[in-house]
Structures are given as structure tokens and as C-alpha cells.
């Protein structure tokens, strides 16, 4: 089996901590940075990264990702957002600063297929396949201003004139783009723009997306079962795993202690099997 990238999903709501027995002096300060602590755990546990999901009932992901990048050294931090939150030029500019601040460790997960009521509460009234066309324009412009010294775009949803980030050298790598979905529109968008296409389910048919890495979101069962699932999925060509494990940061340390070594052991066995 080849190497699998293990990312954890960040907590987006501030969970209560277990009460201490009444006779124990409790000086725990208010929790202000659960995403940063989870990110640090993922970093120190040797995981590939942390994903901050778009959660309308939770903290905002780009702001949280910025704090997580500051708290880490090696982990990649992926912020999930939907294209209606900002203009593509501004998304690129904010992200370019984060890339410069973090040595290029920020990635984007673009949520296109929002629930109708959630979208409207976010101020987004676009529906159906149009959302994929807008996402395509959004990504085209963001990449365009990132890479081109002068970039013009006249589209259905956006216009830019003489855009282009004014960095002396390159602002660093454009964030890796995660996309998902199984509709024809979603797969077309992924073919054009995805670096990672996240499958909807573990038994979804493998889409034909040449050059795109496949990803899968998994809930952590026990370590043995999850390791076995990852091994199966790696054999199907999946390379990136977004693990839903609670509570963080503890679950990230658990993955570092047990899941990562288990996967390494399985990979060694596979090699020996091939040689044998």
C-alpha cells in the first residue's frame, strides 16, 4: 500500500470540559482557541494536517485556519468555505498572506452544494447547477490573479480588471483545492479545478478524474477497523483521509500513537508480500 495522508477535522464548536471533583482547585482558563490546540496536536502527532469544516453553527473557518497555521510548523491547514462569502480576488489576497505567513501550508475546501436554507441564511440565493458555474469562475479568477501579473476577467458572476497580486516574487503555492460531489456538474468542476476530490461515501464508484487525488471522509471507529478501511481505500486509489475523531486534541494524539504506526506496519507487510 502506498502512503496515505491523514488529516483530522477540527472542532468548530467550543465543547464543555469534564468537571473536576469539587475539592480540586480548578484554574482552567476560558477556552479561546480550540482549533489552534487541535491543529498543534495534529502537527505534533505527525498527521498531514487539519481541516476546518464550514459549519454555520460553528466558528468561521478562514479566521480559525489563520490561528491554526500560526500554531503549527508542518501540518497543512484546510479551510472549508463556500464561494459566496467573499469575492475571488479578496479570497486570493487573504490566502496569499496566509501562505506567506505559513510557508505555503493553507489549502481550500470549496463547499458548493449547500443546503438551501443554510445558503439563504448565508445570503446566497443561487441554486442548482449555476452554483458550479459560479464556483468555476471563482476558482479561475482566484488562480488567475495569483499567477498573472495582470489579469482581466469578464464573467457571468464576476468581473476583474488588471487584477494580479502585487507580490515581488510569487506569493507561494496556490492553496490545494478540495472539491466533492457526484453530479455531472460537480465532476466537471473537479476535473477542471480540483487537486483533491473527496468521495461522498466509501463505496462510491471511483470517478474518472485523471491527475486528481481522491479523498475520503471517515469517522474513526476503533484503530484496527479504521486502519483496515484505509488500507482497502488506498488500494482503490484514495490518497487523502479526513478523519472525524473526537474529542480533539486528544484524538489527534491517539491517531499519532496508534493509527499512523499501524498503517506503516501494514505498508511494510504489503511490501514483504510483494517481494515474497
Amino acid at each position, binding site marked *: 500500500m502506498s502512503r496515505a495522508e491523514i488529516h483530522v477535522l477540527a472542532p468548530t464548536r467550543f465543547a464543555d470540559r469534564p468537571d473536576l471533583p469539587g475539592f480540586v482547585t480548578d484554574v482552567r482558563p476560558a477556552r479561546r*482557541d480550540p482549533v489552534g490546540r487541535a491543529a498543534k496536536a495534529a502537527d505534533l502527532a505527525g498527521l498531514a494536517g487539519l481541516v476546518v469544516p464550514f459549519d454555520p453553527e460553528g466558528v468561521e473557518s478562514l479566521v480559525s485556519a489563520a490561528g491554526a497555521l500560526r500554531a503549527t510548523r508542518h501540518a497543512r491547514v484546510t479551510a472549508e468555505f463556500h464561494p459566496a462569502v467573499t469575492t475571488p480576488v479578496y479570497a486570493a489576497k487573504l490566502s496569499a498572506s496566509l501562505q506567506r505567513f505559513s510557508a505555503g501550508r493553507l489549502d481550500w475546501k470549496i463547499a458548493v452544494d449547500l443546503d438551501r436554507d443554510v445558503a439563504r*441564511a448565508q445570503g446566497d440565493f443561487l441554486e442548482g447547477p449555476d452554483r458550479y458555474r459560479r464556483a468555476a469562475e471563482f476558482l479561475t479568477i482566484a488562480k488567475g490573479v495569483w499567477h498573472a501579473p495582470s489579469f482581466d476577467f469578464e464573467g457571468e458572476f464576476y468581473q476583474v480588471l488588471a487584477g494580479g497580486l502585487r507580490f515581488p516574487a510569487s506569493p507561494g503555492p496556490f492553496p490545494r483545492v478540495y472539491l466533492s460531489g457526484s453530479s455531472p456538474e460537480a465532476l466537471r468542476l473537479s476535473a477542471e479545478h480540483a487537486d483533491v476530490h473527496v468521495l461522498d461515501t466509501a463505496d462510491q464508484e471511483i470517478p474518472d478524474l485523471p491527475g486528481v487525488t481522491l479523498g475520503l471522509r471517515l469517522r474513526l471507529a476503533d484503530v484496527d477497523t479504521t486502519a483496515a478501511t484505509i488500507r482497502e481505500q488506498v488500494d482503490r486509489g484514495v490518497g487523502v483521509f479526513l478523519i472525524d475523531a473526537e474529542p480533539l486534541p486528544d484524538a489527534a494524539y491517539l491517531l499519532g500513537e496508534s493509527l499512523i504506526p499501524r498503517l506503516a506496519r501494514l505498508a511494510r507487510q504489503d511490501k514483504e508480500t510483494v517481494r515474497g
Partner: protein
Amino acid sequence: MVDLYWRLHMEGDQTSLRHRVNSRGGFAPDAPGRIAPGVRDGAPDGFGHLDYLAEVALATEDAGLVGGLMPSFPHTDDPWAAAASLAAETSAYRFMIAFQPGFLHPVQAARMTATLQRATGGRVVFNIISGGGGPPQLWWGDKVDHDDRYDRTSEFLDVLKGVWHGPFDHKGRFYQVENAGLPDWLRGQPFPEIFFSGSSPAAIAAAGRHADHYLSWLEPFEALAEKFALVRAHSETPPKFAVRVDVLARETEDEAWEEIRQGWAARPARAAEHGDSVGVRRGRSFLDGAGDGFRDREVQPNVWGGFSELRDGPAFGLVGSYAQVAARLDELLALGVDALILAGMPHLEEARRIGAHVLPLLKGPLS
């Protein structure tokens, strides 16, 4: 109480006003002898612009200033990115984030703000700018024209406040939301103070509705007083006033002017700026007919209009001894100003200098 802020250079910093060269952070290239990004043995030395910004923020806290204005232009790093990055390593520092309403959706702005308020214990402040127009505005992909941008700003702030206290429904000219709000555990936090900039009639009308503080660049004091009177006349509830002031203060007046003399002698030729900023035009108008010598730009004692030749930004600032600069700041406070945004080059050492030598001399608005 008077809130004293210090500017945070999102565009990079100079080592002094004597040479107009960015050598710390910003978009300066890696080179030996520079700070952020610096070079050690031919490779980046691991101290980046954000590390330098953090140092300036901590120096600002140490100096007794309440926080920093974080500007936003095409040639700067992004203030939301920097504020969110520095939230956890500052303790009292207020992040005055400059942003243009056109670039973020108000629901997104509400969610980002509530997240940062929670992370910082309520240390976010807004500097709402509506854009200088011209080519820079098109660079951002924003085609809304000057006066419409203030209408959009007004509607943006209505929606942002509505969402903050939601649930909120709205169908307007620029924005529409249905049942928008914040999750329970992010609700009920303080809404950031709004510092509002703009010198045009459209800006002043919008400021009258939304500003906690009407923020102006430094101008000759009489002109400032007139501008404030105009804003008061246009406002149902008059806002407070804030002024952004560059300061070059030294032990003696001669030392301060010698810095200026050297900078003036070394200043590069300037390209003309394009845009529809009324504030920039006003700033130039006070210098019509000024001669070519650096002291010709001193329009009243210690008020010097040549800063824009020595660094990016507004023309006017204060030059003088510690005591003179403190006296001029007191005069500004006496005009009814209750927040100052001070700045100096380099931002790190000058923050410490001002904290040690000028702030202790202030007598306050009642002197």
C-alpha cells in the same frame, strides 16, 4: 478616556524616514541584512513578516497603546489574515481591521468577527473604508462607483448588525438574507467599534449613520475643526472623532528636523496617483504654492505636510521635540478628538520611543 492606537504596517516597514526603502517585511525580497524575510547561510532565516508584525504588536502593548490600525491596500498583506494569526499571542492589543464592505459578504464578516471576538475576548475594532476608486478599485474586481459604494457600505453595516443580533431577514439593493444569525454560543458579544473614513459628502452622510468614530487623516488644525463641524451637522448623533497622525519626535527639535532633512534630500521622484479619493485631494490642497524646501511644508508649528514624500500614506504629521509633539497632540485632543492613531518609521522602535518619551508628557483633552 482617550484611546491611543499605533499603526501596524501591513505593507512592510522602513528602517527610517531617511531612506524610502522597505526593508522589513511587506513585499521586500529576501536579502542579507534585511529583517523579515532575512537570510541566513543563503536560505530564509525563519523570521517572516508575521513574526515582525507580532513584535510590533507586543511593543505597542508595552508602550501603553491600546492596539493597532491594520490598513488594507492592494500592496499590503491582509489585515484579517494577520489579526487572526496574532490573536492568540497578544493579550490586550485591539486589532483595528481595515476593510472594504464590497469584498466580504456581511454574513461572512459577522461570522469572522464573532469568531475573532471569541478568540480575543472582544478585541476587534473596524476601520470601514469604502475605497479610493480609480484603477485600484477595478483591481479588486469592484465596479461600484464612488457614491454608490457609500450606499453599499451603509447597507452592509445594516445587514452585519442585523445578523449580529439575528435572526434577521433583509432584501435590499446589494444584499439579501433569510433567517441569518449567529449560533447561540457566538451571540451576545460586543459589536466592534466602527472607525469610519471618508472626506466626501457621501462619506460624511454615511458616517453620520454608522460611525462610532469619524476618522480623518491629519490636516492643518483649522481645516480639521471645520471638517468635524460638518460631520456634526450631518449626524443625528454626532460621532466621536479620531485622527491618524504620523509622529517624528526626538529629544530636541533639531534632531527631529535633521531626520526630515536627510529624508527630503534622498526622496525619489513620485509618480502621480489616480483615484477618486477626496481625502487625498484635500491633503494636497493645503500645500498649494508651498516651496521646494522641506521647511516650506510646515503649515503651522510642528505640523509638516511632506510625509507622503518619505513613505507611502498621508501627507501630514508632527515633527518636533518630545515636548512639542506632546503639546500638539494635546491640542488635537482639545479639538474634541478622543482617539489618535499614531505612526512612525520604523514602527517597532518608534512605538517604544513614543511610549517612553511622548505619552507620559500628555496632559489630556482638558489642558
